[in-house]
């Protein structure tokens, strides 16, 4: 859906999405890195299980909800990637304790 412009010279950052290494760039938000990864990163909703991807990318729609380093329901569009960050795509409701 999205590709990176060649002029982007930012240093790489490695994150893990459901355990798989994904190349991101310094300054990417988690959501931008996921959308740029060309992986299937659709979450499924808590209400009906419908698949969703980020919609607004500016912190208002909450369709980018994702588990980051063990903490569930984070807004991926507001969190910058960090080396070694562990991302889990949320399927359905978030789990107790996460």
């Amino acid at each position: 859906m999205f590709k990176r412009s060649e002029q982007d010279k930012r240093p790489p950052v490695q994150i893990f999405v459901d355990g798989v290494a994904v190349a991101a760039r310094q300054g990417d938000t988690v959501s931008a890195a996921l959308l740029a990864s060309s992986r299937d990163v659709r979450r499924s909703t808590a209400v009906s299980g419908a698949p969703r991807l980020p919609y607004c990318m500016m912190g208002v729609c909450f369709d980018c909800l994702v588990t980051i380093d063990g903490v569930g329901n984070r807004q991926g569009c507001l969190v910058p990637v960090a080396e070694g960050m562990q991302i889990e795509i949320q399927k359905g409701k978030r789990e107790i304790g996460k």
Partner: protein
Amino acid sequence: MTVAPKREDYDVVVIGAGPAGLTAAATSAESGLSTLLLDENIGPGGQVFRAISSTPVTEHSQLGADYWVGADLVKTLRASTAEVIHRATVWSLDRNLDIAVSIGGASAFVKAQRVILATGALERPFPIPDWTLPGVMTAGAAQTMLKSSALVPDGRTVIAGQGPLLWLLAAQILRLGGRIDRILDTTERGNYFAALPHAFAFLTSPYFAKGLSMMREVKAKVQVVSGVTELAASGDGQLASVSYVAGGKRETIPVDLLLLHQGVVPNVNLAMAAGVDHRWDDLQLCWSPVLDASGNSSVAGIAIAGDGAGIGGANAAVVRGRIAARAAMEALAPAAAAKLPTMATLRADLAKAERGRVFIDTLFRPAPQFRIPVGDTIVCRCEEVTAKDVLDAVAIGATGPNQLKAYRRTGMGPCQGRLCGLTVTELMAQARGKTPQEIGYYRLRAPVKPITLAELAAVPKTEADIKAVVRG
């Protein structure tokens, strides 16, 4: 990386680091007031100057001169004594000007003499069939990715809707080598006539020449379909096609990415939760705070600047930020205020910056069918409530958005009505034969953004706090 505020009390707390917030904080700090700027994003700029200090887009012409204006605002702010905290989510503001802010998973509390809300705008909901499918996003979302990560659409891409941002985004995507297959322009034909009486102010505003050249640039490279009167996404778990009607003819095209945009509206959540009076704006079709000429709201000590005060654009936001800061100074440090341009000068600047706005608002007033959906189209994305669900609730007695919560949970999901509130108000107003003003809006309360119970539980408590809730 994330630090709590250095003090417990400030003269001025500014919330939001877009054009209005950057200007308000810098102006206030330069005049000697202790100033704290809290912003939710990773860096300064808000939406219009998103990633201004970090964008990987190095070719200045690609984002345009209007974008780089933001760099000067940031420079001025950084040269001032204002304390700035990013990734700081304000989740409560009340009538006592007590502010609760979540920073790095912990909450801090500060008190202000004056609060300047510069929480800006968000894109108007665009509830078409299957707008919740993966592959449907807002135009602003694509622009955010373009500015902050130099990401551009790659697959089959359609942009649909209307308004200045749509053309700017299209031009930027093309300049960065991205793909756009078609633009579906939903501007109503009748709007051109309605806007005509306001054309002179627009023709003599800077918007005109810029807008015209951008539209020419885009139309030279992309097929533009105007007069689109129906629009629907479809796909099985993933966007597969877009179908539309233009000139009475229906067409369906395969597509990977659909970017929607029909203007922006004030982001009212924090202001409303603080008790600021709002009223329905019949031209801009949204809620706007009731403000005096200095940006002061109905809550003593809270002013609103920028698009959160009613959509005016970035140039107007800068001036409104300056006006709100001057008003704070007049209240707290009148001697320092005398050194600033007079209110009369600033208000003249604002009138100049707002020139042409009525024309734009009238021309790009979204059509009813794109604001008030029918049938199975989802209204509330969080709780997955359709237009029919809302009408059914009205039929059995739901009178307004707050009653509707009890029937259908609309607005009670994590977005707290940001993506459905306007639709619900207009839908219920239409169904009940009332005005949006009569129907009203969700009653918003803190926390205006979700925080964890663990974070709340970790907040320092006094003996009295504990006694108030513990039995026996």
